[in-house]
């Protein structure tokens, strides 16, 4: 059976051009870029070239502001922890309730160490309340860390604007954004609209590079201590021999992403088609984040009265790969913290499904999902104790009031 891959917010297919670019560095070109001899020179040149490609994708910042890391999780850990260690006297951190765990858990850990951390709530559409942001911001705030695009819903936060407000409050506040889901999917220009952002994290495997490589943009002059020490690599900002093949891969992936940014409209068109068709065919279906600005590739649905893992399992019988925020897929027994923060109705909370597209997604694949998904939902509703199959509607006795608060 042919795989229909609709889980590009989890990871992406490695572009063939990327594989071609990195392969020599797994074979002949094995030299250490720090070595003095002639053979090492092409290696360090390749690193520089990759750094230029990444810098170019981010709007043409100077390449020395890019540091390669092992993944976005490292970049986030470094950004938050490194800023905290650089200014130990400042103790307040501002973030949101819907960050990726690689930010959320780091912030919670700092809270356990005595930092004051404010977790901003979101509304039903997944958006931040700007006034709540302003009220929480303080002149003595150390760090604001707010994601650019949400990995589950694709909802975009206005980080350019939030960064400006932070810096006008006090230029010493450091503004970090986890842009893992945005880079490569939408334009992010750190020399123009996003000029106020100090630190930006992202990873390679979300934009058709392999897993195991990421980057942190740090604006010159931003106070941040390294996470890994013990070597001069990356301008003393990140010790450890460079992962040359994957850094080259990231550079090539960024070059391709810049070329393909024009595909955004086509991807958005496919997503909108998928959304409209499913909403039309399936009753009691929520589109999470529908009323907010969203990534063009992401569609997060919540089906009332059924459970997400069994949806995914059936989709997979048709070769379709998607993901869910349901408790049964997370390994934690708790449904998604993002959907909870958005107050998705509890009758739909466990029935979420995320489709995320890429530039490789075709109209045929989207049509196939439109064909398959409604029947999957219907089959699980027939088996659900909360659904009346005869009327194709919830049973009159099905719960619909807010659940008791624990």
């Amino acid at each position, binding site marked *: 059976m042919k795989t229909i891959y609709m889980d590009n917010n989890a990871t992406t297919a490695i572009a063939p051009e990327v594989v071609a670019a990195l392969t020599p560095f797994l074979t002949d070109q094995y030299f250490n870029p720090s070595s003095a001899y002639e053979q090492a020179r092409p290696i360090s040149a390749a690193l520089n070239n990759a750094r230029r490609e990444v810098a170019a994708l981010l709007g043409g910042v100077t390449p020395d502001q890019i540091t390669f890391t092992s993944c976005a999780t490292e970049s986030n850990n470094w950004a938050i922890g490194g800023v905290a260690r650089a200014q130990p006297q400042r103790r307040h951190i501002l973030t949101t309730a819907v960050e990726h765990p690689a930010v959320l858990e780091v912030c919670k850990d700092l809270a356990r160490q005595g930092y004051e951390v404010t977790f901003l709530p979101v509304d039903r559409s997944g958006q931040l309340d700007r006034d709540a942001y302003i009220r929480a911001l303080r002149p003595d705030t150390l760090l604001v860390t707010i994601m650019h695009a949400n990995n589950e819903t694709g909802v975009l936060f206005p980080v350019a604007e939030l960064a400006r407000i932070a810096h006008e409050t006090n230029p010493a506040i450091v503004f970090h954004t986890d842009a893992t889901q945005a880079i490569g999917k939408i334009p992010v220009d750190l020399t123009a609209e996003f000029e106020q952002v100090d630190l930006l994290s992202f990873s390679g495997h979300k934009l058709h590079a392999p897993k195991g490589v990421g980057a942190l943009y740090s604006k010159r002059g931003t106070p941040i201590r390294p996470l890994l020490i013990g070597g001069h690599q990356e301008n003393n900002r990140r010790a450890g021999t460079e992962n040359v093949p994957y850094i080259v891969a990231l550079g090539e992936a960024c070059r391709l992403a810049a070329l393909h940014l024009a595909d955004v409209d086509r991807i958005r068109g496919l997503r909108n088609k998928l959304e409209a068709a499913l909403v039309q065919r399936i009753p009691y279906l929520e589109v999470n984040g529908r009323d907010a600005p969203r990534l063009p590739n992401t569609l997060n649905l919540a089906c009332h009265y059924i459970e997400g893992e069994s949806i995914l399992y059936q989709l997979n019988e048709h070769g379709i790969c998607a993901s869910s925020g349901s408790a049964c897929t997370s390994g934690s027994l708790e*449904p998604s913290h993002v959907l909870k923060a958005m107050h998705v109705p509890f009758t739909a909370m466990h029935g979420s499904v995320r489709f995320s597209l890429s530039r490789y997604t075709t109209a045929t694949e989207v049509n196939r999902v439109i064909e398959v998904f409604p029947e999957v939902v219907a089959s699980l509703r027939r*088996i659900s104790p909360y659904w009346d199959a005869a009327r194709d509607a919830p049973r009159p006795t099905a719960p619909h009031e807010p659940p008791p608060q624990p």
Partner: protein
Amino acid sequence: MAWEYSEKTRQIFMDAVHGKPGTHMGEIEKPDGFGEHGSIVCGDALRFSFRVRKHATDPLQDVITEARYLTFGCTSAIAASEALCTLIEQGQFTPIHALKITTQDIVRFLEGLPAQKIHCSVMGAEALESAVYNWAQKRGVDLAQAGVQLQTKGEDDGRIVCKCFSVTEPYIRRKIKELNLRTIPDITNAIKAGGACASCHHAPGGLQDLLDEAWGRKPMSGGTAPALPAAAAPGEPSPFQLYKHIEQVVAQSIRPALQHDGGDIEVVDVKDDLVYCRLTGACKMMVERTLKEEINEHLRVIAV
């Protein structure tokens, strides 16, 4: 996590959702026994019903002829429900005999379940138990006299240990023994308790204490767990007088001028010398200049 279901589980699930003949999805009208377990908030729920061939004189000799379920839940929850009904119908059990079907029987029938999915099959056994209780009431059977100790009765009233999934102390105590649960992950995998916020793991009277009591070890935790620092309060309140003054200047000098040109201003917040304003059709510099002139020269306007 990736799926690790047996081929049998997969087949049973797919047959069930496609309503293949011989599967048991559905509900019996006017059932002889009816029971439910779980809830939509927790993420899985099961509605179970059965019909018996009634014995003319002795209800204890009723035989279950038909069992049906409706399940809200994951792949293994649905497969476990199907397994339960199949086992009951195949066995031609009396309701009391059917109670002997254990979680392990269901897991064996499914040719294994991933550890973290065991709670899905526990749900089946619980729903069966409450359906048998329902049958006994309808048929006037005294279960205690028949030698059955139905243990779920009254367990709902016990102290709630796991607040996230509303799991009570009597229920956890019973399951620790019944399913031979030795660690906190064992408990979470089997009955979900402790699977979310984790605050009940080592709290006094929490899961570890219940395990220690059950298996004869000395409770370890004493006193209360160290409290985590509270989330931050919003910033320091702005000086009241300054704020009043700003509002006054805005109301008397700035807003009328702006409204004259079709614009408006709303002061969102004031912190130290920073005045956060929502401006429509207005010039930030003009507002700032007025505030500086009329109040103090350190004030700065931030447009939001």
